[in-house]
């Protein structure tokens, strides 16, 4: 069943191609030389906030919320990061504290 070297290289090449397509297509379809349609400019303005929200959810997508520990360590740590950041607005403090608390929670408590 194992692939040959050439088959492996083609498979890796396909993954590279697919990734590059998802990154380059917007820039190829809407080149900077021509004016971007107003609808796309609108999307460019409103999408980032939505994309960042999607990214937060994407980064915890494999947490089992309906079984196991129900994502409690993740939720506690996220709330801590958010509160700390709103309070102190110090990126390093928020990220480092949240991560250390999360590591403690899953290594010792859950």
């Amino acid at each position, binding site marked *: 069943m194992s692939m040959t070297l050439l088959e492996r290289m083609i498979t890796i090449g396909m993954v590279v191609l697919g990734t590059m397509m998802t990154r380059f297509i*917007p820039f190829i379809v809407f080149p900077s030389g021509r004016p971007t349609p107003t609808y796309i400019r609108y999307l460019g303005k409103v999408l980032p906030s939505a994309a960042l929200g999607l*990214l937060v959810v*994407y980064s915890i997508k494999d947490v089992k919320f309906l079984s196991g520990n129900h994502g409690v360590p993740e939720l506690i740590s996220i709330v801590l990061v958010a509160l700390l950041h709103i309070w102190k607005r110090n990126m390093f403090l928020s990220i480092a504290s949240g991560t250390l608390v999360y590591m403690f929670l899953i290594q010792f408590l859950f």
Partner: protein
Amino acid sequence: MMNKNELQLAFRAAFPSTIPILAGFLFLGIAYGIFMNVSGFGAGYTFLMSLLIFAGSMEFVAVNLLLGAFNPLGALFLTLMVNARHLFYGISMLEKYRGTGLKKIYLIFGLCDESFSINYTANIPHGVNKGWFMLFVTLLNHSYWVLGASIGGLFGSLVQVNMEGLEFVMTALFVVIFIEQWMKETAHHSALLGLGLSILCLFIFNSGNFVIPSMIIIVFVLTLMRKQLEKKTGERTCQ
């Protein structure tokens, strides 16, 4: 032309904003290198894949593709699905990447989750060249990832410290960036839609399938709300 001082200035401004990624990517990269190693791929593969693909989650998926039956079209379509969220980043960066010359090609090549979130929200100091700032952010992220993956591939079996949970550093980073963006904007409709619709889709579809439906519904709702939102976001700061 850029002189050495201007490059140094851009680098010094860019580096601090990438430090959380340094921690996250070294850790995830090492984990990836170990995973590759355990799956029977040498450090050469790990180095090549981390250098050329530079899309964390897809590289883990690619290991499974390499272990399965040869199916190049299947690999291509799976990649398009897993990485479809990059389309959002591209549309968001159309304006910011404008006028960056040849650097733009590398900026687009390296437009991963982390490069997008930092470059989109960064408050680039006055007098610092924006193109070089974004290039250094992307290049540093890329280097951390390749470095971590290579360390994992070469020495992964020697790591003994219990680092379980360190991967949360990426979630923490995204939460912080989400809040930063929230504080900058005057209307929060889009942020709430992105968060809410993604959570909804995650529960309706499973974790492997929720991104595309989320994206379609987000674009659909944002399109319906265009008239209303264009008024509200008109004054939004766009640096």
